[in-house]
């Protein structure tokens, strides 16, 4: 049941990815990430002294500030801030710099669908650029479910609006490590199959959601090695068109 | 606030116990009151009152407005008090906000009386031009210039004198304004009709220090206050409002004879204030 998409992409094809790092000179770490027309700029101001009120002083504290393209911060932005903060808290090693605050500023340059996943990827790239110790990187993808139970990846704003439902999924990125495969299995599944964050909109059947999980996992492999390539490249601000 | 040493506190308390205060007054005497009216030209009415070192200015501005839906036959009065930082360093920035909110609320309560309008100092129904559509809105603003205690009484007196100095312009309503759109109203700026302030109450605050209570307490005496009762009484001797401030509890019987003392004191204060206002009006005419 092939559903053709407005911009001619197949179901699993992502929009062209572009990531450039160290774009701002005053920030300790910065990165701009764009998926198709959705573009987000993330800046990290390194561990600063002191933590916010009622935050745990034994651990580092992550603060996310979301700047919309225009207008005021509504409830949606507050929710994005909370989700991003929880996600980044789970991938950062918080005990290395106790009693410090790392603030991450997300500036939305343009929003053409799948905004939150794009922000997560940009934040991860900015964190690595700033040299903040991370357990692993996070890779985010948006899968939307058409009426016939048909799953498509990385929708544009238009597709996102008139589809039945969509889900933002965040996975740890695929790790290349010397241990044999068996060692990295966690109760029978490779570590990167675990979901860090999942937010869904719209009603869908349970197995449609599981189908989204599968497709999302497949896509993260591609995203992971794009992320690794863009991080390894010596020239930090090279524009690398995705495969 | 000036800090008082234990010796000074004891001295003031002892004095009050023997009916002789630090500035020579008896327990129920007022400090000299001076009133100037018409000091702000662009307001409908204004007055400045000085009681001893306490100096306040009150101004009344009458503007056309729409009566609110729940009371179509009544005009609107809003009281706002502002404590300027010149009076006390503590009033800087937002410091004076809480005190000014409290003063505004107790003044509003004394001036407007009950919800059905009885006991109101200002007769709200006289502010109506076209019922339900156009009425006068009275904006009463008070400013504390310098504070040496007894702010509420000074503001009460200032508002009473400002109201007596207020002139409400005469109004013609263009006939034929049908339906619910705003009728055409023109305001003449020559003839003013005087505002009747016969029923505007004055406020007397009794401050309890030790076992006795005094009238018109200065800032030092107010810092020793265990509790204070502000009573507003109009010309006919009726009580139009009462607020007990300050922490310590009071025996009901003490409150009752405080009320009778306040009534007795208010008659003197009322007559003194009327003569001061008349003098100020006369002085304003010939100047």
């Amino acid at each position: 049941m092939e559903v053709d998409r407005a911009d001619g992409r197949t179901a699993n094809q992502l929009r062209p990815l572009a990531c450039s790092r160290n774009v701002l000179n005053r920030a300790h770490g910065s990165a701009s990430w764009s998926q198709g027309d959705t573009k987000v700029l993330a800046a990290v101001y390194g561990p600063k002294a002191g933590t916010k009120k009622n935050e745990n002083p034994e651990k580092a504290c992550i603060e996310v500030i979301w700047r919309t393209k225009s207008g005021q911060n509504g409830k949606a932005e507050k929710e994005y801030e909370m989700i991003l903060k929880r996600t980044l808290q789970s991938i950062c090693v918080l005990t290395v710099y106790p009693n410090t605050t790392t603030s991450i500023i997300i500036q939305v340059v343009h929003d053409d669908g799948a905004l939150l996943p794009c922000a997560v990827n940009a934040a991860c790239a900015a964190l690595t650029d700033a040299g903040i110790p991370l357990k692993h990187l996070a890779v985010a993808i948006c899968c939307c479910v058409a009426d016939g139970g048909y799953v498509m990846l990385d929708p544009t704003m238009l597709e996102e609006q008139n589809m039945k439902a969509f889900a933002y999924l965040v996975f740890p990125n695929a790790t290349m490590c010397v241990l044999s495969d068996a060692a990295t299995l966690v109760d029978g599944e490779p570590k990167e199959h675990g979901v860090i964050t999942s937010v869904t909109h719209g009603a869908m059947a349970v197995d449609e959601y599981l189908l989204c999980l599968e497709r999302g996992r497949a896509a993260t492999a591609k995203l992971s090695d794009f992320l690794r390539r863009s991080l390894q490249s010596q020239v930090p601000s090279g524009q690398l068109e995705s495969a | 606030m000036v800090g008082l040493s234990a010796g000074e506190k004891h001295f003031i308390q002892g004095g009050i116990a023997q009916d002789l205060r630090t500035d020579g007054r008896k327990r129920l005497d007022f400090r000299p009151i001076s009133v100037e009216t018409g000091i702000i030209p662009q307001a409908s009415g204004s007055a400045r009152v000085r009681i001893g070192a306490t100096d306040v200015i009150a101004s009344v501005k009458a503007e056309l407005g729409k009566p609110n839906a729940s009371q179509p036959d009544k005009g609107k009065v809003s009281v706002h008090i502002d404590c300027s930082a010149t009076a006390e360093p503590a009033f800087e920035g937002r410091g004076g906000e809480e005190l000014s909110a409290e003063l505004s609320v107790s003044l509003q309560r004394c001036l407007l009386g009950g919800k059905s309008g009885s006991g109101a100092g200002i007769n709200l129904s006289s502010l109506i031009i076209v019922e339900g559509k156009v009425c006068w809105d009275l904006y009463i603003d008070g400013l504390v210039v310098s504070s040496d205690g007894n702010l509420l009484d000074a503001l009460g007196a200032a508002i009473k004198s400002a109201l007596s100095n207020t002139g409400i312009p005469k109004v013609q309503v263009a006939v034929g304004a049908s339906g619910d759109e705003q009728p055409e109203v023109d305001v003449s700026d020559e003839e003013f009709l005087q505002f009747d302030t016969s029923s505007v109450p004055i406020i007397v605050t009794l401050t309890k220090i030790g076992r006795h209570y005094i009238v018109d307490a200065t800032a030092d005496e107010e810092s020793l206050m265990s509790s204070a009762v502000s009573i507003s009484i109009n010309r006919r001797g009726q009580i139009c409002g009462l607020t007990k401030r300050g922490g310590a509890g009071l025996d009901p019987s003490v409150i009752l004879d405080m009320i009778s003392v306040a009534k007795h004191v208010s008659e003197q204060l009322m007559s003194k204030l009327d003569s001061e206002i008349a003098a100020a009006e006369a002085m304003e005419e010939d100047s």
Partner: protein
Amino acid sequence: MAGKTPTTYSPSPRLKSKPAKNDAYDSVRPDGRGFAQCRPAFMRTGAVNSASGSAYAEFGNTKVIVSVFGPRESKKAMMYSDLGRLNCNVSYTTFASPSRAQGSDHKEFSTMLHKALEGAIILETFPKTTVDVFALILESGGGDLPVVISCASLALADAGIMMYDLVVSASLSCLGPNLVIDPINEEESREDGNLMISCMPSRNEVTQLIITGEWSTPKINEAMRLCLDACTKLSTITRTCLKDAASSTQD
């Protein structure tokens, strides 16, 4: 539902105010009570278990919840003070009163609640710290402030804050010649005067008294007498409620 929510109005008819001066004040009130009869009072402690002390009170259809957060470190901006501090806050729910926009006077209620409780709490027992008293009025059936004050003192007792005595409060409206205790919304909207007293019954001390409208001295005497014995009746109810709460935790 994007953008500014469109302005809406409530379809319920404006409370048609009855002719203000109907001389023949019927001896029975709109809800069938006598003039000196208070509304049925129901009080219970322990309504919110994440607070150190809390109470729920229902007088007629005025429903109030108060929760007290025990002596805790005060805000950083506060200077050192060897007396404890009291911080009160009263707020309405949006559906408390029939018309949504109402409830603007709750800022004034916070200072009044503070003044009513200030005289009864032994502040020296918790120096440098603050006791927070927060009240939420779920439904406003009239005479809200007295219910909040009585419920707050019950919550303070539940939180174990040292007090000279429980504070109970009652209010009274004057409708023409009649003095009507514990008024409801309808009576309050057309009252000529209002007297609200909060006192410590066993010490017979008045901690707060607010009178509005026109009163003659004899009328004030009688009104205060009526309110004070309503307070003593209310304080017995509050004490029994505390005793049951204490006995129920023992067994």
